[in-house]
């Protein structure tokens, strides 16, 4: 018995020492990042991480924040909500990070947000657009627009710019982002006078969509709306084209990944999707970001990379203004962010901790992306 208690005591001491190991080690500020570095939406996590890394390197080269260097600790959630919750708990309780950046997918941000709120650690989501995310508490922020805006603008785009009145929807029922976007799209499209003649569903990870597509085709739509992520999006468009559905297909910002064109290829022609910025933008901030990013990672930055970069810079700016690394102080500084010039536009955090930003629509022509238009909020 004595040996056991001895071992237990030793274990406990180790845990306590490990537990205290993180935090500010004198000249460092620890920032946690959780993201989908692997799994079904791997490019989201990887791009965000690259963008964030660039932001950290630039900030540190320019002298850091509050005289300290930023150190980024990254955890992979494998594109799974339950892993996201574990990753964030670990970052906060074991690594003692001062703030959290993540996730792209709303379902994963929704899993992590209550934990950050409970520990009073500010969380900045780079790209989760579902409105519920920031409703989880006053420590949860985002630097992107939200789905009611995105859904409305896509519906207006389809009705006004493309001129279609009969649409169908194919959504991912397991995904908060996709379900929300489908709902907001439908509301606006119908209030404009259009009709959604059929709606079908799939689940993330499916690969056969022909049954749903055949049913949608029978409704004779003029255009199709596919809110969801890029792998399924590309497979859906591909199979739709195989079924001779040549109509324009519209997606949301979940399509923005280099994998979209890699999987979809020429089938992606005549599709449109909303996103957060365009690499063709001539603004000085965008030009310099695209140049630096391409030089550093040898690839074109997609929207998630740009948002990861912006999320990092906004957080570091807030810590600078807060003057210390206390969670509540950082939260107050984040909430006061106004007219911050980011790569993805001018960012002002509103009273609901969301960002009001313009939306960019891209189109695919001859298997490459083209800038279509920008819509101001």
């Amino acid at each position, binding site marked *: 018995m004595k040996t056991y208690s001895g071992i237990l005591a030793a274990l406990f001491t180790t845990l306590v020492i490990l537990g205290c190991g993180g935090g500010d080690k004198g000249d460092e500020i620890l920032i946690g990042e959780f993201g989908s570095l*692997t*799994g*079904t939406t*791997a490019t989201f996590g990887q791009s965000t991480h690259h963008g964030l890394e660039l932001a950290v390197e630039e900030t540190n080269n320019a002298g850091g924040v509050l005289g300290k260097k930023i150190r980024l600790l990254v955890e992979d959630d*494998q594109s799974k909500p339950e892993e996201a919750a574990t990753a964030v708990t670990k970052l906060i309780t074991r690594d003692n990070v001062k703030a959290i950046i993540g996730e792209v997918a709303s379902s994963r941000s929704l899993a992590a947000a209550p934990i950050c709120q409970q520990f009073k650690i500010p969380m900045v989501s780079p790209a989760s657009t579902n409105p519920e995310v920031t409703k989880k508490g006053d420590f949860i922020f985002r630097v992107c627009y939200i789905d009611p805006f995105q859904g409305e603008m896509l519906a207006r785009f389809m009705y006004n710019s493309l001129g279609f009145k009969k649409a169908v929807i194919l959504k991912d*029922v397991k995904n908060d982002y996709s379900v929300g976007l489908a709902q907001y799209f439908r509301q606006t499209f119908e209030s404009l006078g259009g009709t959604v003649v059929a709606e*079908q*569903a*799939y*689940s993330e990870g*499916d*690969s*056969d969509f*022909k*049954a*749903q597509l*055949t*049913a949608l*085709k*029978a409704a004779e739509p003029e255009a199709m709306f596919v809110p969801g992520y890029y*792998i399924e999006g*590309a*497979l859906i468009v*591909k199979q739709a084209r*195989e*079924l*001779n559905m040549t109509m324009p297909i519209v997606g949301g910002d979940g399509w923005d990944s280099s*994998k979209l064109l*890699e*999987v979809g290829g020429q089938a992606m022609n005549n599709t449109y999707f909303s996103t957060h910025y365009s690499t063709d933008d001539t603004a000085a901030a965008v030009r310099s970001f695209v140049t630096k990013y391409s030089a550093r990672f040898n690839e074109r930055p997609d929207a998630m990379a740009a948002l990861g970069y912006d999320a990092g810079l906004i957080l570091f700016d807030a810590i600078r203004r807060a003057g210390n690394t206390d969670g509540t102080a950082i939260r107050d500084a984040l909430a006061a962010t106004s007219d911050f010039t980011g790569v993805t536009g001018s960012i002002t955090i509103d009273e609901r901790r969301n960002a009001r930003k313009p939306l960019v629509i891209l189109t695919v022509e001859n298997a490459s992306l083209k800038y279509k238009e920008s819509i101001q909020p």
Partner: protein
Amino acid sequence: MSEFLQQVINGISLGSIYALIALGYTMIYGILRFINFAHGDVFMVGAFIGYFVAPHVISLTGGSLWIAAPIVLIVTMVGCSALGVTIEKLAYRPLRSRPKLTVLITAIGVSFFLEYGGQLVFGPDPKLFPTLIPSSSLINTQHVVIGTNSIVVILTAIVLMLLLRFIVYNTKMGTAMRAVSFDHRVASLMGINIDSVISFTFVLGSGLAAAASLLYASVYPSINPLMGIFPGLKAFVAAVLGGIGNLAGAALGGLIIGITETFVSGYISSSYRDAIAFAILILILLFKPSGILGRHDRDKV
């Protein structure tokens, strides 16, 4: 009507793939009386062999898919057969005299080993499978579209099933397989080498899984180490539905499951698709446990 026809075509194309996988389940059950739960993962490994081999073969053959696709098919089938035989030798053979439950649980272990080992070796994110079947539409009326994909899938499945039937019913090895499926001990008394018959069964079953994986990956070109789980389960349901141990039953079961799934997705809701597939399994087990074509006095392989 045109929508109905199109759904039938979609269903047959999906069902043919399930049928090919189901044949592997049913043959191994026929011989060894246990469900090889690692079968779906052998299917997954097949897709990855194709993924790594195809680009080299395509460049060697100068981009001619007519020559490249069959070569990739053969290489993948050989690779998967080797894997199947290895699994049997290392994991199942030492346990052959043990209770069936022990082997069954080992099969689940092998399944996890391949899934998570696959994540370690291939990486967990989805990969784009190279094009082996150029996608264009063969029949393209205003209402019904039949793509080269569907035709190649259905034809390959039919050819392989006929070939399997020939092997099982018209060759010496096939006769030995049928004998072993009736009674191991009596068969071995008749001079049949049980070990080689069992290895041969794994060669056939895994080879068919390999072919199914290439067809599946050509139609749905995003592959990952966990892709075998659901097709594997569906094919297992198909094998039980048709009558486990019965070859024609597995093919029929595969088609029924494929068409049912397509109809449920197309006419009801895709959310119920998997639920209905497994409800069929429960109903079959309740009311006709031997399956549609399964009868105890029929010859089983």
